[in-house]
């Protein structure tokens, strides 16, 4: 369907929904690279005005990628919950924005609405929102998931310890891991990006992590972020797999470039569930996403990168994940050029994911060829904290020596907890206190009296490395 907007003497034409969505997107380099971005600032606002007048039901009659061509579209259409959608079905995108901001949109109502929303509806409304809108609405969303602890409770902020090492050296990994635990991190997951994606090395690392977790009785989960097929093999060989990881995207073609499909993810999900290792709950999947991945795989079908990213959340939602992480600044400046673009993308992704009912975290990060620095990361981290982000990364000194990029550090997590009054997951917080890492006010005490305040297993782990 064609869309039109007249402003003064100029009429802007948008031949279809995906073009309208792309032109309405706040500027980012990836859309310009794909030649999808608005040609002028006015054209962008014309598209936003047109989008604001569009009924939400339009997204149920027109797909940005045809149903026949793409299994992600089929998933979105086939699993849409019309009953959940009913309360907002007569709204336009602009009216939906106002409703979301209003007091009618309570936490309970937003939770009930989630299955009735499609990624495209959520992406559309995000395109006509300012940062404060994205923050205040996301902060109202409540998404709680469980495995050995509880992620996403109001007032909490969890962290993944990411103790990567360039050659997967077990002692190097253990050193970073212990440093992270002693700084109060790790309640989201202890998760390693392996340098080598083979079942053997994956199993070796899993055993090491699991042994440490058991020895210290840590109420958290472990994960090796290997390809899903590697993890399935590890499960088949009896390895201690808590969470099954996979990078996913918002089109069938980009998922193919990642070597996955919905049926393979289904298989992986079942394999993860079969181990039944969760004590608090059984959310066993961990997904990572990020704007621009579809374009970089030439799998974007002329759809803007933010809309495709929201579609990735439909894939994630299918498998009830414990954690969904948008790795926002890793992709590089040809997709998100600078701190401004990274900041907006991080908040959009968090908002879209939360509104769709996902436990969203964010890898607040950048590469050295992006126009960004630590100040940009501090700003995004703070904004995400205010928005109620479920979890962030914890990388020693913010410097990942394996993946060669900068993320958030253990210190950064403590900063945002202190500045905004956030706490770790409750089960993990109790453990931190018992282990002698943190006091009841949430202050780090692991380093204040040599190692004397630490629990016996902790002291032994430090000397056994």
């Amino acid at each position: 369907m064609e869309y039109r907007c007249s402003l003064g003497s100029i009429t802007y034409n948008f031949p279809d929904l995906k073009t309208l969505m792309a032109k309405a997107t706040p500027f980012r380099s990836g859309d310009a690279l794909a030649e999808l971005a608005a040609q002028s600032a006015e054209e962008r606002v014309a598209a936003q005005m047109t989008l604001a007048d569009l009924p939400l039901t339009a997204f149920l009659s027109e797909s940005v990628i045809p149903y026949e061509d793409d299994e992600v579209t089929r998933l979105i259409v086939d699993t849409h919950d019309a009953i959940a959608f009913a309360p907002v079905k007569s709204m336009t995108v602009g009216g939906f924005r106002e409703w979301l901001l209003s007091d009618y949109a309570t936490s309970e109502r937003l939770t009930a609405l989630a299955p009735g929303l499609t990624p495209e509806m959520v992406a559309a409304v995000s395109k006509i929102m300012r940062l404060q809108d994205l923050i205040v609405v996301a902060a109202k969303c409540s998404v709680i998931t469980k495995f050995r602890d509880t992620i996403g409770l109001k007032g909490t902020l969890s962290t993944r310890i990411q103790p990567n090492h360039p050659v997967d050296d077990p002692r190097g990994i253990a050193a970073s891991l212990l440093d992270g635990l002693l700084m109060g991190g790790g309640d989201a997951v202890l998760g390693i990006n392996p340098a080598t994606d083979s079942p053997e090395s994956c199993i070796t690392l899993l055993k090491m992590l699991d042994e440490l977790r058991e020895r210290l009785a840590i109420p958290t989960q472990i994960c090796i972020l290997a390809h899903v097929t590697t993890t399935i093999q590890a499960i088949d060989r009896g390895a201690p797999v808590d969470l099954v990881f996979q990078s996913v995207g918002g089109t069938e073609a980009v998922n193919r470039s990642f070597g996955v499909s919905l049926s393979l993810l289904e298989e992986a999900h079942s394999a993860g569930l079969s181990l039944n290792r969760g004590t608090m709950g059984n959310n066993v999947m961990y997904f990572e996403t990020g704007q621009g991945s579809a374009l970089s795989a030439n799998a974007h079908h002329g759809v803007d990168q933010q809309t495709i990213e929201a579609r990735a959340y439909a894939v994630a939602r299918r498998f009830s994940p414990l954690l969904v992480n948008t790795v926002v600044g890793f992709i590089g400046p040809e997709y998100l050029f600078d701190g401004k673009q990274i900041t907006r993308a991080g908040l959009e992704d968090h908002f879209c994911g939360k509104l769709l009912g996902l436990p969203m975290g964010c890898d607040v990060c950048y590469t050295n060829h992006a126009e960004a620095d630590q100040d940009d990361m501090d700003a995004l981290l703070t904004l995400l904290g205010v928005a109620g982000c479920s979890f962030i990364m914890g990388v020693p000194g913010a410097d990942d020596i394996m993946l060669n990029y900068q993320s958030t550090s253990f210190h950064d997590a403590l900063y945002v907890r202190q500045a905004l009054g956030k706490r770790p997951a409750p089960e993990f917080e109790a453990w931190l206190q018992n282990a002698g890492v943190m006091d009841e006010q949430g202050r780090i005490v692991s380093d204040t009296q040599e190692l004397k305040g630490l629990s016996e297993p902790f002291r032994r782990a430090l000397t056994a490395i």
Partner: protein
Amino acid sequence: MAEQLEPEIVNQMPVTLPPWSGLRRFTDARIALGRAGIGLPTDAHLEFQLAHARARDAVYSNMDVAALTESMIALDLTVLRAQSAAMNRREYLMRPDKGRRLNDESRLTMDRQPGTGYDLVFVVADGLSATAINQNIAPFLTVLLPDLNSAGWRIGPTVMVEQGRVAIGDEIAHLLNAEIVVVMIGERPGLSSPDSLGCYLTYCPNPGITTDADRNCLSNIRPRGMSYTDAAARLLYLLTESRRRSLSGVSLKDETGLLPDRTSQALECADNRNRRD
């Protein structure tokens, strides 16, 4: 009042140093940094800033064309200069496609070259770190060339490209009628490696059709990474095998213990951003 306060402040120790600093011997990661409140101690903070500053400077550095040319001529190489279609660094960063193509003038320069073809041409491109080129090219070529010369390789002119990405070598090799191209390029700087050189070998490249799967990559060539001797041995092996088997890329990778392990290949092939799984 002031007299009472002063000694108290002097006795306050704002930085807590962790008693587990011994763990540092197991990893280069920035662990056991200590803390001031929940913030970084000033030293650790400024060390990070310095590393980032060096990486940023590397991204915006320029090739020292005069010095590089001089050192290549001293090695009996002929040198040509070229420029990609990216006008400047900003365009280079935002438009990877332009960094993969020659501009019109450079294409003409290549086209006008005489010669009946070569076994091999080198392309030296700034990539994401001209610092890596300025620091590593001369010593690396000094180690590499004697072996190539004694093995009888017919080496074409070395093309020095500004604002270039890996795939620009395809067009250059095509225009110069070279069988194999080796692109030596500055890699995306890491926080502790602003000077990392990458080498990409492609057999019979075909502009627009050749993909990254058709290339072999040596990464992290620098004094504190893969040594020049090691890199030269590996590259010589790859070149010999590529010519003998008339191929490059994935199918060349798997069959030798001399080639780099997956780890060094995972470490950023400068032109090919992989996601993190």
